[in-house]
């Protein structure tokens, strides 16, 4: 199990994207330095998840929830991160609701895909003919 810890890393291209977003194009990291950056990111995640796990345990919860992540950041004195994460959370929860509404509409129709396609085509046809009547 200990060996696995060495193997998990973040994709270089993705980290490079993050770097490029902030760094002016004429600056770049040496390969070694970028790998060090990746290692730091991994270590950050590990430290944060360890603390978040502790926060969950403090509430006798088995699942690490978003509030535990927030608490962990505060415990570790990364308070400045909190407002942005809260914003992400709000956006995420909002989109989840939209997704649920959309999914249930489809599932509850009880129609096969062919039937749905046929109905869709019918609707298009109707609206086309409405336009042509103008």
């Amino acid at each position, binding site marked *: 199990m200990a060996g696995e810890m060495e193997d998990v890393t973040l*994709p270089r291209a993705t980290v490079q994207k993050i770097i490029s977003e902030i760094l002016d194009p004429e600056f770049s990291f040496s390969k070694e330095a970028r790998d060090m950056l990746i290692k730091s990111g991994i270590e950050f995640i590990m430290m944060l998840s360890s603390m978040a796990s502790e926060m969950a345990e403090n509430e006798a919860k088995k699942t690490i929830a978003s509030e535990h992540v927030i608490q962990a950041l505060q415990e570790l004195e990364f308070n400045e991160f909190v407002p942005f994460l809260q914003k992400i959370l709000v956006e995420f929860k909002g989109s989840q609701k939209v997704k649920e509404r959309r999914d249930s509409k489809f599932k509850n129709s009880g129609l096969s895909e062919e039937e749905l396609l046929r109905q869709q085509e019918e609707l298009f046809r109707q609206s086309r003919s409405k336009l042509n009547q103008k």
Partner: protein
Amino acid sequence: MERVEMSNEDEEEMLLKQGKDEGEQIDIQNNDGVDTLKEGDDEDFDVFRNVGQGLTGQYREMLIQYWQELINEIESTNEPNSKFQDDFKSHSLPLARIKKVMKTDEDVRMISAEAPILFAKACEIFITELTMRAWCVAESSKRRTLQKADIAEALQKSDMFDFLIDIIPRNLPQQ
């Protein structure tokens, strides 16, 4: 996981209540190192007090400005098509990978659906911060390639990086 019954707006209001207080007065200034953000009615607690820690002059200003821009984005995101709306969808770091990292800790058992998304964002911000700080070191030596030693030096300026002490060797010779 609990189902959220509140409307989107109510939730946002609740979650951002703290943030909103900060938002209205947000104006991180370099007044003798004292930042002016306060959180609600509590005893003076400045959420952004660590921003730019250990840095001075233009470098400190740069960090403060970065965080200021992030805050501005939060505040301007009640309209659709905001930056944050896409952030959690096109989050860069792969969630499966993040979950894997988390699970290397045996104490970590179950993880809610949104937790990896928060980790991805936090990690992204952290990497960005470290990049900026390493840049400050390289730039002050008029170099354009950021080296391991620049990162090592950047880490020493703030205790927020203490947890990296085993990962990054300090006192690397400058190349």
